[in-house]
């Protein structure tokens, strides 16, 4: 595994004070560390431990074994012929939905949890929106014998009661967060508060490729297997590289993971599909790169949804996993440099693609991943029948059956319509 192909450029932007160290973890003008000083030394320790672990075959070998034997990685590459016929271009699906716990997120949490063990810490905390990262964290904690506390906005604990039960079955404590808007961003705030107070005993398993350095780089490197496997698999399957790679983007961990495998292939266009909610023009969306402005949230500089005074705005999406007002700083940079293209997909477009994938392939996708499918359907129209589009099917839709059934009118208030 190569750690540093995408290493952030650590150029000092300073010049005013000679003895200030070069700021860490920048991707162009994005990224960095906007965190209380109390957490800076712990972040330095984490970074050092991570770098050391990744050059230790004992660590990387154990992580590879866990991924293979426990998490069902590498996930298959699937030639989706009926979907392709419908779309009018060849569509390949990277089946991250077949991983243990049903999404790409297991890769990141197993990496971070194994690193936690190596650092001698006994307790992990995590934030979760819909509950997927919380479930993955609770799973890794059970597997590696760690205490686990998951912070979840009170609104989300009500919307996703089954995932709360899942985490509890796995032995985690779920703390409903009642501050602010009582959603994912507030769960992150509360997890940071816990971490400041308990950092000596506790690791923060951050759920996406955002947050302060080293999280964006570390989460990318724990998920980059998606892209590396895909590149190999697509070459084997088709004899050439895909023309486009499509992924959904909330915080952006599945997207950065698959992009990482193709970043040096200039002919492969990278597309990130953001949650357009009711439509970007409605103001009710989570399309941070499309419609946000540069700012600082949760430790990093990136695009975010904010008002004139820099107060964070609430995001909206039918997909809880994309419902976040920020985005990982590397995505902001890839957009800024033009290496990747980010577009919004509305709730309706995503649900239409969800339906198409169910009916053509017998795969119920996570609503997050349905955004990537919807984006690929549009790309197919633009690119034509000779194009090959690789889509990261980042998660399965079991968790979304209730939401989708209400959306399609199959259930009304939880009862048969």
């Amino acid at each position: 595994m190569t750690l540093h192909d995408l290493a952030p450029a650590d150029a000092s932007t300073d010049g005013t004070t000679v003895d200030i160290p070069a700021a860490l973890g920048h991707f162009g003008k994005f990224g960095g560390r906007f965190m209380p000083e109390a957490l800076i030394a712990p972040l330095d320790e984490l970074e050092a431990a991570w770098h050391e672990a990744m050059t230790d075959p004992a660590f990387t070998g154990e992580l590879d074994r866990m991924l293979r034997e426990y998490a069902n990685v590498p996930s298959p590459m699937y030639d989706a012929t009926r979907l392709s016929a419908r779309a009018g271009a060849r569509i390949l699906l990277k089946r991250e939905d077949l991983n243990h716990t049903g999404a790409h997120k297991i890769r990141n949490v197993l990496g971070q949890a194994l690193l936690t063990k190596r650092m001698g810490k006994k307790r992990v905390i995590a934030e979760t929106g819909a509950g997927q990262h919380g479930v993955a964290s609770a799973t890794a904690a059970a597997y590696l014998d760690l205490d686990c506390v998951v912070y979840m906005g009170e609104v989300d604990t009500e919307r996703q009661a089954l995932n709360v039960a899942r985490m509890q079955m796995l032995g985690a404590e779920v703390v409903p967060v009642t501050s602010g808007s009582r959603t994912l961003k507030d769960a992150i705030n509360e997890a940071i508060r816990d971490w400041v107070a308990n950092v000596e005993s506790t690791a923060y398993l951050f759920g996406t490729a955002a947050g302060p350095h080293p999280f964006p780089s570390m989460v990318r490197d724990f998920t980059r297997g998606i892209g590396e496997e895909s590149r190999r698999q697509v070459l084997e399957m088709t004899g050439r590289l895909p023309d486009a790679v499509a992924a959904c983007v909330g915080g952006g961990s599945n997207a950065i993971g698959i992009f990482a495998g193709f970043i040096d292939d200039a002919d492969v266009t990278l597309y990130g599909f953001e949650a357009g909610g009711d439509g970007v023009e409605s103001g009710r969306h989570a399309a941070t790169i499309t419609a946000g402005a540069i700012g600082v949230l949760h430790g990093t500089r990136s695009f975010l949804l904010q008002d004139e005074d820099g107060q964070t705005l609430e995001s909206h999406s039918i997909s809880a996993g994309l419902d976040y007002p920020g985005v990982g700083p590397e995505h902001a940079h890839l957009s800024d440099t033009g290496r990747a293209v980010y577009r919004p997909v509305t709730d309706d477009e995503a649900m239409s693609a969800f339906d198409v994938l169910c009916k053509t392939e017998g795969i119920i996708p996570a609503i997050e991943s349905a955004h990537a499918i919807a984006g690929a359907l549009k790309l197919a129209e633009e690119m034509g029948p000779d194009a090959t589009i690789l889509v990261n099917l980042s998660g399965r839709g079991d968790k979304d059956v209730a939401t989708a059934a209400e959306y399609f009118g199959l259930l009304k208030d939880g009862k048969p319509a």
Partner: protein
Amino acid sequence: MSVLSERLAELRAENRPALVGYLPAGFPTVEGSARVIEAMVDGGVDVVEVGLPYSDPVMDGPVIQAAAGQALAAGTRITDVFDVVAASAKTGAPTVVMTYWNPVERFGVDRFAQHLADAGGSGLITPDLIPDEAAEWTTAAKAHDLDQIFLVAPSSTDSRLAMTTRASSGFVYATSVMGVTGARGQTSNRAPELVSRLREVTDLPVGVGLGVSNGDQAAEVGAFADAVIVGSALIRCVLDAGDDLDRGLEAVHELAADLRAGVERAR
């Protein structure tokens, strides 16, 4: 030398620790926060910290979150913060703003500094901005003669303490516990150690915050710190009084006087 540095130097000459009081602007209302600050200063607060209410205050405990949330819900804007700073500075107490970084960046760093200086503010406390990321703020602070008050923590390494104090002016803010803001039953036993580590690398005054809620604790902290910072306990006085602001003002005045007596007998 800033008004803040001058005042802290005078107090140091008197061998008396400064009392610093915190309140978010706009709590309980914009006009009300100016009155609470007047009551604080009248009760004995030497230096005022005006908080800029922010949607995602990761360093703050429940009391400050509640006060800032109330201020935001009532529509408090950044421009209101400057009005509160102006009212505070008029009392004669050196006044600084404590703010998370994003609102400053959004407002425009130099523009923020200009407005703060025009309002009579002395500087900025930045809980989530470390000197490593502060190049633009350093330029603006120098251009407008504002103090840069950075935080240090028990977890800070010696080299970070040295670097951060070199980047700071006015005073350095020592967070005495590993944790968020809020009154605590006992003050931290890690604070004296942190302050003595700071003494080895700087002559800058050291303010100690997080957890002080009464005169006895203020005396305890004032024995080794140059400034004792109190926030949540003062806010609690206003929160507990509900809609009865006059009762809240009385309680703030009384607590400020108790805290002042504490710092007076600290040494």
